[in-house]
């Protein structure tokens, strides 16, 4: 065999190996609540409520003392109970089961006094974009749901944007990407899609508010080398300058790296605080390294790090770090006057009773989505075609949800904002003795 040929083959072989090394897919770090795939030991209710048994009340029936019983409203609920995003999708599904059980007992009453049963049809999309499209179509066409709640991940939520838009069905996503509710090209809200999940821009606004209050003007931004990390950096670059804060040094980091030369540059840049744009398990890694290299510098996390995983992994290095945080995760330390306190306490009790797991922010997103859908259905009068009902639910979601109480605070939705979250609704917390404690504004220093 020709030596030259062999050499060429070898070179190609080495090149492939090198390319594989360069392109090896980064495992997406997911915030991991304890025992992600564990199925709740005691399912609160069978997955599906019984099929509608009561026929729609004829509109001509004479009024009686008992409330009229109308059509059964149907909510389609899809989460990623298995697959890559199972650690997020399982708590979401559990919350849907809890809410379904509650509604089965009570039903809801419309504005016209007609009582409706509510059926929540729960499906698992297996973290797959193909599956979610099939399931969404089935829920829309066969089950004829009034409103859809789907789904756990940004990518899979994106996959059904065109499906629900063409079918004209309101959808509430439980994922975080802005592009789910907003067309990135036109910067306009997508007509049929909503999501109650705060974004990194809100986190950045809250961080900027804190930094300004403590008179820090020069910060370093270190973010994990993932699309999430880049999004935190984009959000900070847009938000910080508005408060007079300069990012004097920024760089991505590989959470699997063994040493972080970035910190020497952070030190040399003279920044007064380090903002870490990452979620566990990547954020505790940088937290520890930064605390080691710069023992006295302020360290600020994003809201994704407000999870017990941060303290568990970073240990003492996490002490004194501050971050914005969804109210659901610090419910017990909120002020009593905060409406989110009682709401979260109720959810957390029901959730821990049913699943024996501690609450996660994803359970909160599912709960908020369901509450929005239910609130919209409560405003829906009996009768009309399915298309009219879906349109009415959409309109109610867009215009009638003002200061709507959720696990993350008060939401005000509008035609220009299908999220309705304000950064002021974030709690701001400090890690103290291994716990997240709300840090009121007068204690920012």
């Amino acid at each position, binding site marked *: 065999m020709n030596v030259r040929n062999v050499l060429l083959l*070898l070179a190609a072989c080495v090149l492939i190996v090198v390319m594989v090394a360069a392109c090896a897919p980064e495992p997406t770090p997911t915030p991991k609540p304890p025992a992600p795939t564990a199925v709740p030991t005691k399912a609160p209710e069978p997955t599906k409520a019984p099929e509608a048994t009561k026929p729609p009340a004829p509109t001509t029936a004479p009024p009686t003392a008992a409330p009229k019983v109308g059509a059964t409203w149907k909510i389609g609920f899809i989460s990623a109970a298995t697959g890559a995003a199972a650690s997020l999708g399982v708590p979401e599904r559990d919350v849907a089961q809890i809410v379904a059980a509650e509604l089965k007992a009570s039903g809801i009453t419309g504005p016209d006094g007609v009582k409706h049963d509510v059926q929540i049809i729960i499906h698992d999309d297996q973290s797959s974009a193909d599956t979610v499209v099939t399931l969404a179509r089935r829920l829309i066409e066969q089950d004829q749901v009034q409103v859809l709640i789907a789904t756990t991940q940004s990518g899979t939520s994106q996959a059904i944007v065109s499906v629900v838009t063409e079918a004209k069905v309101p959808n509430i996503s439980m994922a975080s990407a802005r592009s789910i509710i907003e067309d990135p090209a036109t910067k306009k809200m997508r007509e049929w899609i909503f999501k109650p999940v705060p974004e990194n821009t809100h986190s950045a606004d809250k961080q900027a508010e804190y930094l300004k209050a403590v008179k820090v003007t020069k910060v370093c931004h270190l973010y994990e080398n993932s699309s999430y990390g880049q999004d935190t950096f984009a959000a900070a670059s847009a938000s910080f300058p508005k408060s007079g804060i300069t990012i004097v040094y920024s760089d*991505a980091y590989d959470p*699997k790296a*063994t040493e972080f*030369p970035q910190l020497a540059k952070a030190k040399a840049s003279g920044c007064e605080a380090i903002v870490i744009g990452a979620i566990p398990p990547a954020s505790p890694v940088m937290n520890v390294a930064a605390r*080691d290299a710069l023992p006295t510098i302020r360290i600020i996390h994003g809201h994704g790090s407000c999870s017990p995983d941060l303290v568990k992994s970073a240990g003492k290095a996490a002490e004194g770090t501050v971050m914005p945080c969804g109210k659901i995760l610090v419910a017990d330390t909120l002020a009593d006057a905060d409406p989110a306190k009682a709401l979260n306490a109720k959810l957390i009790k029901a959730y821990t009773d049913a699943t024996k797991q501690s609450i996660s922010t994803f359970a909160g997103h599912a709960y908020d989505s369901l509450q929005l859908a239910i609130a919209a259905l409560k405003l829906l009068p009996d009768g009309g075609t399915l298309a009219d009902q879906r349109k009415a639910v959409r309109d109610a979601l867009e215009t009638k949800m003002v200061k709507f109480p959720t696990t993350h605070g008060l939401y005000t939705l509008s035609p220009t904002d299908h999220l309705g979250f304000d950064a002021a609704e974030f709690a701001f917390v400090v890690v103290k003795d291994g716990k997240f404690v709300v840090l009121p504004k007068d204690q920012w220093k």
Partner: protein
Amino acid sequence: MALLTQSEKKKGISTIQGVALAVVVMVLGLVALGSRYNFGVVDYVQFVVDGLRAGAIYALVALGFVAVYRVTGVINFAQGVFIMLGPMMTISFYEQNWFPSLRLNLFVGALLAIAITAVVGIAIERFTLYPARRALPLTKIIITIGAYLALQGGALLIWGPQGHVMPAFSTLTLADQSFRFGGLLLKAQSLWIWSTVLITLALLGLFFERTRLGKAMRACAVNRQAAQLMGIRVDTMATIAFALAAILGAVGGIVLGPVTRPTYDMGLDLGLKGFVAAIIGGMVNFPMAVLGGLLLGVLENMWAGVTQAGFKDLFAFVVLIVMLLLRPRVLSGPEAEGEH
């Protein structure tokens, strides 16, 4: 060192001169790049100290490559699997909490992990390479890549895609003890890494110099046919070389575990960097492989320090390509290399 034959010594010196020249040029270039930042001397020393830590691991991995290459003539790309299996299994055993003492848990877990990794190394040689022992070197390389991918896939099934936490040896938490000298930061785990590498090197030296088995392996490396004629079982030596490589990889992975987040795919990067280190050292020379590993670690870390951290891996792989262009025959086995 006695491992060097006369001809190797001559070549070694010229290689050393070449590498030394390249290193001086690179260091000057890196310092020039670094002048854009407000770095002090301490920062450069810190880059070197941190780089020596990664470099020590590359050195261990490189030793595994050299051990297998010298005895069997195969470049074992499955080496990365050993680096990954070490810490992953250690973490799994550690979390079983068999003993009341955390330290004992970690120690026993690590020993078990090293033992099992050695068995995996032997299995790779016996079940994939031995049946193909008469194949071309290229075929064997492809086989080792296949073995690597298969085992990495298995690791993904067992441990999932997420990073795992391995406790630092001193504190048994993720937050390690650190020592400060002026502005310089030294972590306790670095000391563990360096002392482990030194002890391993000493044991390896003793093994090759003082034991019959080690001498037999050296004989195989110098001349396989002659060794066979002397009654040495060359096939057994190949198996032992794989076990040795597996142990070296596992030890490196375990001591490195606490300073990173072990994942199922960590072996690919570390394995390739170890290969680069071995190639810098000429593929057949143990002390040069160690030197290659340390050099690569330091230069790579300085490079990442003075440019963007995202460019870190670029350095090692550019060096790999340059070295392969300079010495392309290295992949065809030691005999082919000796021909020219």
